[in-house]
């Protein structure tokens, strides 16, 4: 680790001011950033922790909308987002207790790891990412592996989820990291179905429109018969071929649907 200064502001205003410093970077739970710093892969001069800002942490249900503060740790979502059970279950399946007690939804989304779980929930739910300057629809937020619509100095404040009629996330664990080797988030709304796939594509999380169309027509596992993802553009590495990942995405989607009917 290179040395850096650490700020722990307690208000959003103070955090935004601190982030104006050159090379400053927000710190969520540090579960991604700190390992990168330890390996000396990044050298920010200043980290601004968002963990101590009460406004950024917490879960709020209003009508059919669940709002989660950006600095809310996974464990809290797992334990307190009962209004959106599929989301709570997804959060409870991330990493291990240490990761869940520290890692935050804001950090996960800003990082947009192609194998992460939250991006699938956000895209699959059609959530809205609220930043300090604007609101970004999930469909416009994820821009490929580790890339998002966030501008320099822009931070995620909260995420607004419309709670679907039913939803389910099925994740096939990566044998080593236990991120998603393939994950499918299926959400059913009146009149529409959204399917988001993570862990699979070189472009990061994406919506599987063929599956959405098939399931919108008839919501049943066998509606997906004959619907499959092409291996082109899917991740291929020592843990699985692109064909395997494309196949797994189909299996996970079917299993998610099966769990919902």
């Amino acid at each position, binding site marked *: 680790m290179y040395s850096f200064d650490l700020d722990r502001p307690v208000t959003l205003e103070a955090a935004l001011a601190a982030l104006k410093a050159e090379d400053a970077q927000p710190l969520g739970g540090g579960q991604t950033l700190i390992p990168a710093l330890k390996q*000396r892969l990044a050298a920010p001069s200043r980290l601004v922790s968002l963990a101590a800002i009460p406004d950024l942490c917490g879960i709020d249900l209003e009508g059919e909308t669940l709002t989660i503060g950006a600095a809310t740790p996974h464990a809290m979502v797992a334990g307190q987002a009962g209004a959106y059970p599929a989301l709570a279950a997804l959060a409870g399946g991330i990493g291990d207790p240490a990761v869940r007690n520290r890692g935050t939804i804001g950090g996960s989304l800003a990082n947009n790891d192609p194998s992460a779980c939250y991006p699938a929930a956000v895209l699959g739910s059609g959530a809205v990412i609220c930043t300090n300057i604007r609101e970004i629809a999930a469909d416009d937020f994820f821009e490929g592996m580790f890339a998002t619509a966030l501008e320099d100095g822009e931070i995620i404040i909260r995420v607004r989820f419309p709670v679907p009629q039913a939803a389910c996330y099925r994740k096939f664990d990566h044998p*080593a*990291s236990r991120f998603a*080797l393939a994950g499918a988030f299926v959400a059913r709304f009146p009149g529409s179905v959204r399917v988001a796939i993570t862990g699979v594509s070189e472009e990061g999380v994406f919506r599987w429109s063929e599956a959405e169309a098939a399931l919108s027509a008839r919501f049943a596992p066998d509606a997906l018969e004959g619907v499959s993802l092409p291996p082109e553009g899917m991740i291929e590495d020592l843990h*699985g*071929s692109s064909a395997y990942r494309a196949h797994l995405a189909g*299996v996970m989607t079917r299993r998610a649907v099966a769990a919902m009917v």
Partner: protein
Amino acid sequence: MPKDHGIGASSKRREDIRFLTGKGRYTDDINLPGQAHACFVRSQVAHGRLKGVDISAAQKMPGVIRVFTAIDLEGVGGLPCGWQVTDRHGNPMQEPGHPVLATGKVRHVGDPIAVVVAETPEQARDAAEAVQPDIEELPPVLDLRGALAEDAVKVHEELSSNLCYDWGFVENNREDVDKAIATAHHVTTLDLVNQRLIPNAMEPRVAIGDFNPATGDSTLYTTSQNPHVIRLLMGAFVLGIPEHKLRVVAPDVGGGFGSKIFHYAEEAFCTFAAKALGRPVKWTCQRSESFMSDAHGRDHVTKIELALDKNGRFLALRTQTHANMGAYLSTFAPSVPTWLHGTLMAGNYRTPLIYVNVKAVFTNTVPVDAYRGAGRPEATFQLERVIDKAAREMGIDPIELRRRNFVTEFPYATPVAVEYDTGDYHATMDKLVEIADFAGFEARRAKSAARGKLRGLGVNCYIEACGIAPSHLVGQLGARAGLYEAATVRVNATGGLVVMTGSHSHGQGHETSFAQVVADMIGLDENMVEIVHGDTANTPMGMGTYGSRSLAVGGSAIVRATEKIIAKAKKIAAHLMEAAPEDIELKNGAFSVAGTDKSVAWGDVTLAAYVPHNYPLEEIEPGLEETAFYDPNNFTFPAGAYACEVEVDPETGKVEVCSFVATDDFGTIVNPMIVDGQVHGGIAQGLGQALLERAVYDEYGQLLSGSYMDYAMPRADDLPSFTVDHSCQTPCTHNPLGVKGCGEAGAIGSPPALVNAVVDALNRGGYEHITHIDMPLTPSRVWAAMR
């Protein structure tokens, strides 16, 4: 009725209190006044000509004391190899130099090029980034067979090729084996890979060098399984320090699994630099650094052929293996694919003719050496896999096929140079059949099928040669060391005992089980016995802990020393009671005269030894302290039978281990709980190999599985609850305790059980074309095999 103390009791591990409460003292917990910190600059390329190292910028960085490259290591020798293998033509193996810091070339990613010593670890690391090696990249040698091509690039230019040795065993059997295979009723052939593993002990390696200018003594604190071996190798071959001026301390050590047997460059460097700089020098390995600097394990590519007659009797066995040595010869590397592997190819069976060929190959990868089981897992895996395949091909039940070929009469001299002293392979198999409920398998399979899962059952046997090893024998085989153990038992005036052992404990529970042995022999409370190990300054010469040898060899030395203590104590007791020494009996810690009611307590005798007021000084010396060396006259041969049940998800290829049963014959059991734990850990490691672990290099020689994000270690939820039984006991015939060793069994016996089970599941599930899948059986591999 289970015993509650002494030999056979499940005494709680006394060392666990400090380990579990954070009170252990590991090497990294040691900080010496004035210590400086070392950071190694390592090659980032697999193969290249090292044309120079620019250290000028690094030297000017804050806190830097000195930057060392190879030219600064004046008088420092290369790292020695402890075993010389003779090839099948009678020539010694090719043995390249192994410099402490790279000279002329870099030969693997992680090869140390320079070292920065600075005031703090961070400063050392900052400056290490400023060191600029000038490397002209060369094409890396990575493929084992390709490395032996005529025109292959050479890892070591001074050698004639990348071949370390071409070993044939037993060379005189070669033609007979070929003939038997050519004419046999049935021959089963299997090509397989025993993949490269990274040991991943919980505690990374650490070394601290210290030099005392007042006495001229050097001390090395290090994470070692065998401090005396490091003292000998480093003192005699690398630094030229006589043993009486060098002390090596291996305090609490957090696991080794073989990787901490070897003498590493960092140990020699820290010891050297402490003297050169006049300050203690400490190095603590980063986890990612350990992936590319700890010796790796396994890495064999094998073709095995088993010839059988029409009744399924084994006629002959022939194997051809390419074994990866990596870029240099690590301390015991040459012995692993040869003497620890070829000698086990008979397994538990009466195969009359065996020929093993091993070509050891240099590549631009991290050196490979012994890893839990060392050679024996490789032997067991190929043998038990080929037997399973033969059973399937010939339509014989796999257990029945094994039974037909079991060795049943002992001692049994195998055609591969070892003699099994004792065993009962039917007994462990009977026990396995009983515990694993094979009769209920079909019902369990039907239940799995109802859930869409394919269930399979895998069974195998194993045998290992442990209690390493008779010195006269290993000397003939090329070992450049003896493999005895030593112990000193010191009885204090007030009766407490200190046992100083040359053996080392880094998780095995020596402090508990060794104390049980001594307490049992004298009839004392275990808490009166303290076990001291790990410091060459206060323990007798020992060869260390590996090869499941601690109790069989180190424990035997302790027994011998304790016998001497008892003999002397009886003389003292005889004097005190005015009786003849032959009439003295020792029971429950008291001496009595046979046939009388005269007795003296243990403490009376020990006190008399140290306060010899009334004492036969003309006949015996005062004091009560004895040393014994023990050199075994054979290996020990633990053996057993394992069963594994799995469920395969045909949609994803994921394998779930449903149950695992191990029946082992370890001879006498001193502490059943510790034995259970050793077997559990071994199975976890074996199933880790079978299901998850694999070191992978890309075509440039970069380690792709260089962190836990890509190198999959087994976790608790990957494994079922194991059923372990060691009630079948045929005590070893040639050591005083009758013990055989249990540390490696689980890692040796479990991989074939898992693979056999998965192949069984797939065959029963309609995938009859699948005869083998290479480890690890990851979901993607199993799925691909089913396509």
